[in-house]
């Protein structure tokens, strides 16, 4: 293979890698968004647990954040992928099913990312809650607000205000966490290849951005082209999300005087 120029490598279509890199970016984004949203759910619940007056939810939330922040993310993903499949298989076999049942990579992967990022989001949400002026919460209580309503109308918007920078960090983290899911594989589509008189069905792993760069680097032996391209694509995602987060922040800090 004679070395190709950057532009030869980065063209759209069957000759170049641009289309693969673009799809990979899309997948990364999809994994990140779902993982982050899962995390938001877990994080909100655990933050409420941590802030609870009751000992049991507090303990549980504490164990959750300590363990899932404490152990390497890859381990959590392995646990989900292998452990989860084994469990589902065992349950299915109890009901008479046969053979091995694989969990869809996308679901297990995003769920694992959700659980991990949720542990981080817990701390951000808790910190932000503590920054909300207590008087404003008192006022809402005094008017008969409590539970979800209080959370949604008064605490939520203010937690958003103080928590957004921290959440932005976690979003960035999740964006890159999607690379870990590649380890357990994200199968997305199949296609057929004719090889002489033989028809083979290939399953392609629709890779995330980082693994795609790795694969392309291995295939072309030109690592820097692909890692730098990956950086550019990541930065495109970051540009979009930084913009979105800044807008959200401007909106969330309306009415707040800046230093």
């Amino acid at each position, binding site marked *: 293979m004679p070395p190709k120029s950057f532009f030869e490598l980065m063209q759209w279509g069957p000759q170049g890698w641009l289309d693969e890199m673009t799809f990979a970016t899309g997948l990364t984004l999809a994994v990140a968004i779902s993982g982050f949203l899962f995390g938001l759910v877990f994080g909100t619940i655990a933050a*409420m647990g941590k*802030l*609870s*007056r*009751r000992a049991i*939810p507090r303990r549980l939330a504490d164990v959750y*954040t*300590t*363990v899932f*922040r*404490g*152990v*390497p*993310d890859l*381990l959590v993903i*392995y646990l989900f992928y*292998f452990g989860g499949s084994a469990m589902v298989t065992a349950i299915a076999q109890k009901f008479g099913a046969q053979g091995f049942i694989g969990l869809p990579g996308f679901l297990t992967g995003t769920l694992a990312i959700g659980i991990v990022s949720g542990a*981080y989001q817990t*701390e*951000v949400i*808790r*910190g932000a*809650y*503590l*920054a909300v*002026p207590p008087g404003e*919460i008192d006022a809402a209580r005094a008017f008969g607000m*409590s*539970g*979800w309503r209080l*959370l949604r109308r008064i*605490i939520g918007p203010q937690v958003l205000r*103080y*928590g*957004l*920078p*921290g959440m932005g*960090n*976690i979003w*960035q*983290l999740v964006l*890159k966490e999607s*690379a870990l899911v590649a380890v357990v594989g994200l199968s997305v589509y199949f296609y057929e290849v004719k090889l002489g008189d033989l028809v083979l069905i290939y399953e392609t792993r629709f890779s995330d951005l*980082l693994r795609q*760069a790795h694969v392309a680097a291995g295939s072309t032996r030109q*690592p*820097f082209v692909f*890692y*730098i391209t*990956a*950086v550019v694509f*990541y*930065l495109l*995602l*970051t*540009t979009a999300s*930084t913009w979105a987060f800044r807008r959200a922040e401007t909106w969330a*800090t309306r009415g707040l005087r*800046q*230093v």
Partner: protein
Amino acid sequence: MDFTFLYTSFLRLIVGIPLTLQLAFSSIGLGLVLAILLAAMMRSRLLPLAWIADGFVFVFRGTPLLVQVFLIYYGLGQFRPYLDEMGVWWFFRSPYYCALLALLLNTAAYGAEIVRGGLQSVPHGQIEAARAFGMSGFTLYRRIIAPIALRQALPAYGNEIILMIKATSLVSTITLMEVTGLAHKIISETFRAFEVFFVAGAIYLAINFTVTRLIALAEHWIAPDLDQASRPIEVGKLSH
């Protein structure tokens, strides 16, 4: 469970702990200083300064640490003649220094954003009060803004510390054998991924557990009046 195997794996893995801790804590320490500097620059009225800081945070927060490590080590390795000429090759030649540099730049970018968030949560009136008494510049930051911001930022910064401890696992890409690198090595010899990761996970958990407790202590220490029990969220009542 094969306890002898777990135990021998453990004995082999703890050899990597000093490197893990060394990298984590030196990058966190240096990174925090840089983060504060960056956050100050981001809020600066001198636009070029703010732009530089924004750009830095943008790039280092926006790309995977793995790629940063890779590009700093292998990428700069491509420019050896120039680095030699500048007399900095000794630095970039060493995988340890390259890892430290990548980790510290990365954590500084994240840290800057956390510090910025903390500063944003300081009630405006309290800053005005300090200004009205002639405080400004460094004293204002040190005495009023920083302590209040710290209370808000500490939970998020605790996250960052833990992330950095785990992030050190990426440096095995550039031949540094810390805990995760050693774990991979044992797995490649035994293929018992699950058990080895279990032991490695337990080691990280133990380190991070200690760190979270220290952070919780610190939180209590800097904000004794913010005893969170005094303003709990009423979870039990969410059912209504």
